[in-house]
């Protein structure tokens, strides 16, 4: 057990515990805040695993933008501040499938890697990652920008009733 392992274990425990609270809590707003904790812990794991740039992008986009969007949605759908009783469906099938998927994958990966050790590589800084993105992966990068534009336009069309209604059946 090296210091890296201790860090990985601690951050992983925080991430899994917070994720457990996200899917079990009765408070909608608290679920969003536990999600912040979970995503932050995962960003810490990225940092330990030498993926610096991804860690900061995770903090910026996930903890910053995505969680704020989710909390906006919580507010706009008038979720109650206190505990809600109608958030869940029957839990047994979910428990079977979710637990089966999680534990099955965990057993598979433990069996594949045992207790082997690898040396950590050089840090994935913005310079090294940028070389790769704009070298080998430049075409997917550009396609992804088109996807973002399409998602932007799609979100606008879906959320504006005047555009969506004429398209869906107003003046056919």
């Amino acid at each position: 057990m090296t210091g890296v392992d201790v860090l990985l274990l601690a951050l992983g425990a925080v991430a899994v515990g917070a994720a457990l609270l996200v899917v079990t809590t009765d408070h909608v707003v608290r679920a969003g805040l536990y999600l912040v904790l979970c995503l932050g812990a995962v960003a810490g794991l990225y940092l330990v695993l030498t993926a610096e740039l991804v860690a900061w992008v995770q903090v910026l986009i996930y903890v910053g933008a995505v969680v704020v969007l989710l909390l906006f949605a919580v507010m706009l759908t008038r979720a109650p501040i206190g505990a809600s009783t109608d958030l869940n469906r029957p839990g047994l099938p979910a428990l079977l499938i979710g637990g089966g998927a999680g534990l099955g994958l965990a057993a598979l990966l433990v069996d594949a890697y045992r207790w082997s050790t690898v040396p950590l590589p050089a840090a994935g800084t913005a310079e090294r990652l940028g070389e790769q993105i704009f070298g080998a992966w430049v075409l997917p990068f550009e396609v992804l920008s088109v996807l973002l534009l399409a998602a932007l336009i799609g979100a606008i069309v879906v959320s504006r009733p005047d555009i969506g209604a004429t398209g869906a059946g107003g003046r056919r």
Partner: protein
Amino acid sequence: MHPTLMHPTLMHPTIPYVVAALLFGLGTYGVLRRRNAVLLLMAVELMLNAVNLVLITADATVRAALPHSGAVFALFIIVIAAAEIGVGLALVLQLYRLRATVAVDELPLADDAANAGDAANAGDPVGVD
């Protein structure tokens, strides 16, 4: 020179892999368990993060021909997740505006119910079809 290049730090890749598997299982559980669409999207985010964690760990573990491919893929997935959450929340808000609920198991999937919703939204009492 970077210190890790001269004295590489050892780690056990099993730990982050198992954390990722557990996160994925919890996300699956949440997707199947939750009725509230916003909470369902949060569980989907957990699953996406588990996949990202696997990619980053593989990037640190496997020596590939292209260095840092896993990290590049994780960045791409983060972008796709941002797009997904934007469109998903637009749909959830539109659903709330039409139905005043975000419970996914109260969604009408039959045709007649969907047409009734469209007509009500357009202010047209008669079905256009």
